[in-house]
């Protein structure tokens, strides 16, 4: 990644390839909106990009508080972008609290754009500043544009007769206008969007548009520090196609809908709000065109039970939550493994334990997904690697759940859920349909009947005459499906349930090496949202001639059949994950190889540089 600092040195021979900007301000400053609008304009420009919205846990913390800072980071450019960026080239701060909490991530020589109007004595004190950093020499290592945005905005929106409060709320659009000028973005789509959003309040639309235009005009006309001018970054070399800018939540929602279509099943999506999983419930709540029904149940237990009921009824039950809610669902998920009905359970992981860091990301529910239920209740666990991958993972979850009559756990996390990237819309006809075959033949029917190949129990749906049957949590006879407490039968049923899940290893793709060679000195093995930083780090290290490969696991259980052999072909294996070492333990216990962990639980994703350093020190240890 080239930083803007390079431009600062006025080396015009190497054009800027990529830029990282972070917008930071009070929750009420509308930084998420600034960020998403800038992202849309950036995608339209033809840049590759990755974003990282970072919310505080408080909805509206007191103005000016450091714990109330909301930030939105975007990395864009002509590079193959894999993360939202390690360090910032540009930091936009709407108050002192935003400056003090984000400055450490800005590169030396980076650009600060600050709303000096918000650097009042009161706000400075709240942020712990004794003197105004915009006025002393503490920011000398950076380039600073300080503008009284509030004053500028009030001026710009004066003609529209808004209240002072509503006028000041246009600050985020003024700032957006300035940044759009700086990076040569087109304002048209944002303006169209504002006209749509405020269709009923034309004065608001006009004021916001005037604010954007004023910010833009300010860039064009004002005296800015030396070297700050419009940056024209070459377009990214993305494959041709129709793109949509999606975050993991939206892609997951589309994937579930697509899975339902491919299985020819209607869906009941039953859930209970919890950050950061709620957004999926929001996303699906408005899709009646796909015959998806959402049910906001009274609690997580009711949600999973309703989903199981829907599957018993012959439709597909899907439920979702984050770690604490998944704990509540545990008993019912084991029940579902016992009654052998399809169910998709989505866990958007967050920092824990308990309420932990509800708005931050972590991968610490892998053990819960694999082992966190009563009894021998094994089930497939699959994990999405990137926001766009959430689409395919969701389809795969529906396929496995219906083909094997089992609950399937999908792991996402707070980062994937909120981060967005351009998604090349797939040609849906390339997806092989997997329509469900309900059992229909009353001859010799018992609910214990299985497909001899997959070991999946039959699915007989209510309404089918002759197939009336009862299922439940009590152990059932392996032949008749009637309640049965016989010791030998329980052994047999446990063995069958295990064999059914183990057998899925033969129905999933072999583990590939994404970057590097199959075998060699060092393999970095990741899963879930660490894809971006691991990929970026391995790419940089390989470019420098290091013998290192990137392997990314999507099937956490059962593991791909060739994974053990593949990992054994490296001298060293390093597993970065955002927990204290859950996958590394699984790999060690499954394959008896001396894999090492690289662990981080700060609520933030890995930086590429952190993984690069770990690669270097791992390689040093190679004989």
């Amino acid at each position, binding site marked *: 990644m080239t930083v803007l600092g390079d431009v600062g040195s006025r080396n015009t021979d190497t054009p800027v390839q990529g830029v990282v900007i972070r917008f930071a301000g009070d929750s009420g400053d509308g930084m998420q909106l600034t960020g998403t609008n800038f992202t849309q304009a950036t995608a339209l420009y033809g840049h590759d990009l990755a974003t990282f919205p970072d919310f505080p846990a408080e909805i509206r913390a007191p103005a000016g508080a450091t714990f109330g800072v909301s930030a939105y980071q975007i990395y864009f450019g002509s590079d193959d972008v894999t993360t939202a960026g390690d360090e910032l080239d540009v930091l936009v701060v709407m108050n002192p609290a935003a400056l003090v909490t984000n400055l450490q991530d800005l590169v030396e020589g980076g650009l600060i754009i600050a709303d000096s109007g918000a650097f009042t004595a009161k706000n400075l004190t709240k942020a712990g500043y004794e003197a105004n950093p915009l006025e002393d020499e503490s920011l000398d290592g950076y380039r600073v544009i300080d503008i009284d945005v509030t004053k500028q905005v009030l001026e710009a929106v004066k003609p529209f007769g808004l209240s002072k409060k509503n006028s000041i709320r246009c600050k985020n659009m003024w700032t957006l206008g300035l940044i759009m000028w700086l990076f040569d973005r087109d304002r048209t789509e944002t303006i169209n969007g504002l006209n749509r959003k405020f269709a009923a309040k034309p004065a608001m639309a006009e004021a916001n548009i005037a604010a954007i235009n004023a910010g833009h005009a300010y860039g064009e006309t004002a005296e800015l520090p030396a070297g700050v001018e419009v940056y024209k970054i070459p377009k990214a070399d993305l494959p041709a196609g129709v793109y949509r800018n999606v975050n993991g939540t939206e892609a997951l929602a589309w994937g579930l809908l697509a899975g339902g279509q491919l299985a020819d099943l209607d869906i009941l999506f039953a859930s209970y709000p919890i950050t950061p999983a709620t957004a999926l419930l929001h996303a699906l709540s408005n899709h009646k065109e796909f015959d998806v029904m959402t049910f906001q149940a009274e609690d997580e*237990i009711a949600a999973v039970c309703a989903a199981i009921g829907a599957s018993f*009824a012959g439709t597909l039950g899907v439920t979702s939550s984050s770690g604490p809610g998944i704990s509540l669902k545990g008993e019912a998920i084991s029940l579902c493994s016992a009654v052998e009905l399809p169910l998709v359970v989505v866990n958007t992981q967050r920092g824990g334990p308990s309420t932990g860091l509800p708005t931050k990301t972590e991968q610490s529910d892998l053990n819960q997904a694999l082992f966190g239920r009563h009894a021998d209740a094994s089930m497939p666990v699959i994990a999405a690697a990137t926001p766009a991958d959430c689409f395919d993972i969701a389809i795969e979850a529906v396929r496995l759940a219906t083909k094997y009559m089992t609950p399937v756990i999908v792991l996402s996390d707070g980062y994937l859920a909120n981060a967005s990237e351009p998604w090349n819309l797939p040609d849906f006809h390339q997806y092989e349909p997997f329509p469900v075959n309900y059992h229909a033949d009353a001859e010799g029917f018992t609910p214990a009947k299985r497909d001899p190949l997959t070991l999946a129990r039959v699915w007989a749906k209510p309404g089918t005459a002759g197939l009336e049957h009862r299922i*439940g949590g009590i152990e059932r006879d392996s032949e008749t499906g009637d309640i049965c407490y016989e010791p030998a039968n329980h052994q047999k049923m446990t063995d069958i349930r295990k064999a059914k899940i183990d057998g899925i290893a033969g129905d999933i793709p072999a583990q590939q090496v994404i970057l590097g060679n199959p075998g060699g000195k060092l393999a970095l093995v990741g899963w879930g949202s660490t894809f971006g930083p691991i990929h970026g780090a391995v790419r940089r290290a390989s470019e420098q001639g290091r013998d290192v490969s990137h392997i990314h696991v999507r099937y956490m259980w059962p593991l791909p059949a060739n994974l053990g052999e593949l990992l054994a072909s490296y001298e060293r294996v390093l597993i970065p994950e955002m927990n204290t070492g859950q996958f590394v333990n699984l790999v060690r216990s499954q394959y008896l190889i001396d894999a090492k962990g690289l662990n981080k639980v700060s609520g933030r994703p890995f930086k590429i540089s952190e993984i690069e350093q770990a690669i270097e020190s791992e390689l040093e240890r190679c004989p």
Partner: protein
Amino acid sequence: MFGLKADWSLDVHERYFTMDDYAGAEPRWCTGCGDLGILTAVHRVCRDAQVEPENTVAVSGIGCSSRLPHYMKTYGFHGLHGRALPVACGIKSRRPDLDIWVATGDGDCFSIGGGHWIHSLRYNMDLTLLIFDNGIYGLTKKQTSPTTPQGFHTNTHVTGALLPPLNPLTVTLGVSNVSFVAQTVDWNAPLLYEIINAAHQHKGTSFVRIVQRCPMYMEQLNQEMQDDPSRMLLLTHDKGVQVDDAVVRMFENHQEHDPSDMAAARAIAQDDSLIPLGVLYHDPDAQRYDELTNVGLNMPMQERVQGLNAALDKFAI
């Protein structure tokens, strides 16, 4: 096999179901257990309604009473302790065509399933909800339940239950959008049948609390209650259930009660001195969540495509 149509012509059913067509495995309840009579009443109601067994689903939680689905020859789901209602709500949401029975105990419904009880009443999906209230945890062997009488000795309160019991009727009648509330005893077969039948005919969640005998753990208490009908109050009204005079004469206390009168229903429920039997409350017009959420499904193709495009355009770049 035959039924009479309104115009007195003969209606020949293609399939006629007898009680045997609804009767599943041999019940394994204790001899004299009140659950047996309730099961028979359910079989009778099914037979009289002639709902196809394949379109009937019995859902339950865990407890002695929750074994009911196994004793039906319909579809059945025997799930988790306390969670029968959410499972039933899930089934009903996606399959409004199915006729759903929910069997649950006093521990199952009022204790571990307390939250679902309240919220399911408000959802008011079309379910027939039977609470087998024996005032004790039967299956786990005599622990105090929310409806165990104060002072009754159990294995968890060896000197007697400490608190006055929960009143399920006042709680139920306190829930917004509740639509059918009735109470009966398992040992009066005609009344039991009529009440379950009325509950089954009601479109919405019909809550029926059945005071149920557990000779295993509550023998003396149950016997005293059974032997003393003066502790009961029979509710009568045109809009309630109709029973033979012979049945009416079994009870010395009667009260005319209009089931559409919520205030009166609450007053009756509140009075602990007598056990009211009959329909306390009935509102056939309460809103049903299962109906409301099914609105707008099955759009024509053109609208689907429009919806899809509009949704995708939100993320257009």
